[in-house]
């Protein structure tokens, strides 16, 4: 800001563009990797195109109409919502609990070890996780039922029925992604100033009061970030579910990502799959925005 009467000196153009030179390469890469496929999908969502059966033909909104009137698509969306509702709160609750427990741990070595162990589920390839679940929880051949049998419990049909399969997918998702939430929230808790923490202990020894008035405000950005990321990750979950049972038995675990993959690469119906992808993207954006709006509603 200049003083009154002193003419403003404009910075040279090159100087003003300096920040863009730093973020530019990453931005270009991100745009080319993300923007081109998005534009491609948007373009073909307005075309009737089945691979190998002639060229793409402009068809207006008919793919969107077909998707919205398809019980298969609607059911897959609803199934995905159910999957989201059953996993997200559990991941958040467990994530907060683990973050708080880590925060309370005075032993730095123990804290480091737990943080490293938390990375293991996130770092494991989702398709490998799915394959392990398929092997371990097989009714007759899996190690889990073998262990249960050794302690006198009858084998459980984990994957051979709709409820069991859905349950396993939910449990696996929670196991895989709770550590991510815990690590994000742990980082948030690390920003709580030490002097404020010490001050509150003089005021009250109540855990809930300390959590609510001191830690929660600092956790809020981390919670918002976790919820947004987890909403996106959950809606687009594919590898793990596909590896377990390809959406079966029947379509009990067929989430929207699997549904779209089937349309695109079994039916080779690029037009319809593109329309369903765009609709799913809209749903994801609306949900993610709703989370942020809810968490920051008192700041609006």
């Amino acid at each position: 800001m200049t003083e009154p009467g002193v003419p403003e000196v404009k910075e040279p153009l090159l100087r003003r563009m300096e920040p863009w030179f730093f973020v530019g390469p990453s931005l270009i890469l991100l745009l080319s990797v993300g923007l081109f496929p998005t534009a491609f999908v948007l373009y073909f969502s307005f075309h009737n195109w089945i691979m190998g059966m002639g060229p793409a033909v402009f068809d207006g909104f008919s793919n969107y109409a077909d998707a919205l009137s398809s019980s298969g698509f609607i059911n897959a969306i609803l199934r995905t919502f159910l999957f989201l509702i059953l996993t997200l709160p559990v991941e958040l609750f467990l994530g907060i609990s683990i973050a708080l427990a880590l925060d309370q741990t005075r032993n730095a070595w123990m804290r480091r070890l737990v943080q490293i162990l938390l990375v293991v589920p996130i770092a494991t390839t989702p398709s490998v996780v799915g394959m392990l679940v398929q092997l371990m929880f097989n009714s007759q051949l899996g190690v889990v039922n073998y262990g249960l049998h050794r302690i006198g419990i009858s084998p459980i049909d984990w994957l051979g029925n709709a409820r069991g399969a859905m349950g396993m997918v939910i449990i696996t998702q929670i196991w895989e992604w709770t550590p991510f939430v815990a690590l994000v929230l742990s980082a948030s808790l690390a920003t709580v100033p030490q002097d404020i923490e010490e001050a509150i202990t003089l005021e009250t020894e109540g855990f809930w009061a300390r959590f609510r008035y001191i830690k929660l405000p600092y956790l809020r950005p981390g919670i918002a970030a976790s919820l947004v990321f987890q909403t996106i990750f959950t809606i687009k979950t594919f590898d793990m579910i596909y590896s377990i049972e390809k959406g079966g038995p029947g379509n009990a675990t067929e989430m929207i990502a699997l549904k779209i993959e089937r349309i695109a690469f079994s039916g080779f119906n690029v037009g319809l799959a593109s329309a369903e992808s765009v609709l799913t993207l809209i749903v994801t954006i609306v949900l993610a925005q709703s989370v942020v709006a809810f968490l920051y509603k008192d700041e609006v």
Partner: protein
Amino acid sequence: MRLPMLSLSVDQATVEGNVMKPSVKSILLGSACAAAVLGFAPSARAWTLQQAAAPFKGETVTVVGLDRPSYKAAQKLTPEFEKETGIHVKWVIYPYGNTLKAETLNFVSHSGQFDAILSDVVWPVDFAKANWVTPVKDFMDDKAILDPNIDLKDFFKVWRQGFTIKGQLVGLPFDSYSGLLYYNKKILKDHGFSGPPKTWNELLTKYAPKLYDPSKHLYPYVLQSARGETQTADGFTRFLWPWGGRYFNAAQKKITLDSPDAIKGEEFRQKLTKYMPPGFLADNHPQVVQLLAQGQVAMITEWSAFYPTLAASRIGPDLGVTVEPKGPKGRFAAFGGFAYMVSAQVPKKMQDATWLFIQWLTSKSMAKPLIENGAVVARISADTNPALQAKFPYLKPMVETWEHGSVSDWRPQIACYPYFSEIVSDFGSKVEAGDYTVPVGMKKLSAKLQSYMNSTDCWSSVNIPGK
């Protein structure tokens, strides 16, 4: 035909002493006659792979393969081809579920990534309709690259038919399966059975009750039922044909899965599920093979390709293998397998080089070494060889099945088969899970398939074998 040489004249020969000195004209005439004789007598110059491959030396042929025994055997033997021809072969291996996707994307994007295309017996209509592959006839017309011993009639008829689309053969069969009944001889014997069941009804009514003992983890039979092509082929279609059920009536453009015969077959399957181990709905090929190998089930119906795995397992000495049981309307065993085709999107030179490779791989002379290395082939001369049949007991029932118990359109040969199969798999799995009764499920399935076939105009692509 009068040989030109007989008209050779020595009229203008001159004589010096006792030696006849031929004139220039007669030398030229003689040379021309010799060339003509050689040209008119092909047997005088035998075709060799080495000679045929000479123009392609140094080229690299990219071949699609699967992570299965037949392709492992092929890869093991490929250096012989490379040594003889100087053509390099690059294998690109995919899991089955990704192969069609990878190949279709290759064609749609014109990437020319693959030279030799692997086609399941349910995919050739797709490839042929879109002109993505070059018909076999085009290579048969080129004597330079055609092995005179190719003998297409040595492939089982059902396999030639399986890859003949609208009258044109489009591929050479490789990795060819039939469904077989594998059984544990000891378990059957211990329960009073001298041999396996001959009919499905026998299996259900006589064998199943005696062999069902969950307390001892013993079950009579398990059916691989996992969502996907396994459910469609192994789970659903297996109980359709033997009861007289059919997928559709192509002439009337009508799905017929809600017919009484089709319903009877799937109802039989439901009765059988009561004797299967819990969780079978999630079981795929490896799981059911392991259940038999570990002695938890007495019988499975699986592809002939699994014989080496089971023979090497702990029940190897007790392993029995025979044809699949018959249904009320006859034996229609599971039919599946692959063929190699040449991509029409690569340059002609590469197509010819590729043809040489797939011709060699599927030749009569390679059939025996392939079988001995764990592959399954559809060559009559090899599969009916008594010495090989004695060494590989699965060959005899497989031959019998292909000759008397198989139809090449056991699964529909239509351009839209992949998604058609997904619909069948979806409903087939739900019926098995008890989400629908069989009549309700089959009716819903028929309606869904009818709508799909009509909306995609898939009826125009139906391939009827032999027509």
